[in-house]
């Protein structure tokens, strides 16, 4: 790949990121209920994927590199799941004294 096209690709990703930003701000003013949160998180995930794949070069990264990178997400999921499993399933009982 030539030098020129590499820089152009980075700028193309930036244009996409800006488009997604406009989309997420615009969608926030549509009355979608729970859909607002889901849509904005979906767009955030798309933006993050673009940054991680193209700017952080994970698209061309090796298998071990991708594995290490994804462990962060895995532990984060465990952290959130176990926190919610504990706090949302137990009633809060005030101390007897």
């Amino acid at each position, binding site marked *: 790949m030539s030098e020129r096209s590499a820089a152009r690709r980075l700028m193309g990703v930036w244009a996409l990121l800006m488009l997604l930003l406009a989309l997420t701000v615009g969608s926030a003013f549509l009355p979608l209920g729970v859909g607002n949160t889901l849509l904005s998180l979906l767009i955030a995930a798309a933006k993050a994927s673009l940054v991680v794949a193209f700017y952080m070069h994970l698209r061309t990264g090796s298998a*071990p590199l991708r594995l290490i990178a994804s462990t962060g997400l895995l*532990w984060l999921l465990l952290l959130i799941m176990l926190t919610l499993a504990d706090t949302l399933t137990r009633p809060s009982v005030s101390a007897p004294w």
Partner: protein
Amino acid sequence: MKDPTPTTRIRNVATSESEVRDPLRRQEHAAALGMWLFLATETLFVGALFAAYLLVRITHPQGFILGSRETDIVLGTLNTAVLLTSSLTMALAVDRQRVDMTRAASRWLMITAVLGLIFLGIKGLEYTLDWRHGLVPGLHFEPVGGQARGMELFFFLYFMMTGVHALHLFLGIGLVGAFAAMLQRGRLGAGNPAPIENLGLYWHFVDVVWIFLFPLLYLVHRT
């Protein structure tokens, strides 16, 4: 006939043959691996705050809606655009350093640092406005309407999350500035892209954290 020598097996794991043969490329790979491992721990650092956010949002949904409406969506959107643009200039710096154009790389790094400072400036302006509107829990908190408890928790998380993010960005700006100066003085010459690449990974990570903070804090429920 297949060749079951250890070399073949290593090749299957590593990216390419060149990486196995070329010790410099292997070193770069190890450096990126270490950086990603550090970023995984950073994910958990900010992840604890995201978990707290999720929990409090589930228990105080109304307070989060009202709290989010008090945030400044214009400044927030502008800041997101500034930070996304700084990721582009950082990626361009890494790209230039890869082809040994250290001068251009240094210039892009300086632009990146300036964009980072603009972000912090806008964030400071936002904090000032938040203070004036009485939205700072513990120090100056006078919310309008009901849901005071939920709003207080929302703004506590708002300041904690944006504060931790701003601290990371502040450190990033210092590092970017230092590396720009090193490139300028020729102390980090051509043929050595790994340090700038890892700096870029850190910068983009801070950007990704903001990408998720923006909808969670500014866009909860605007209609």
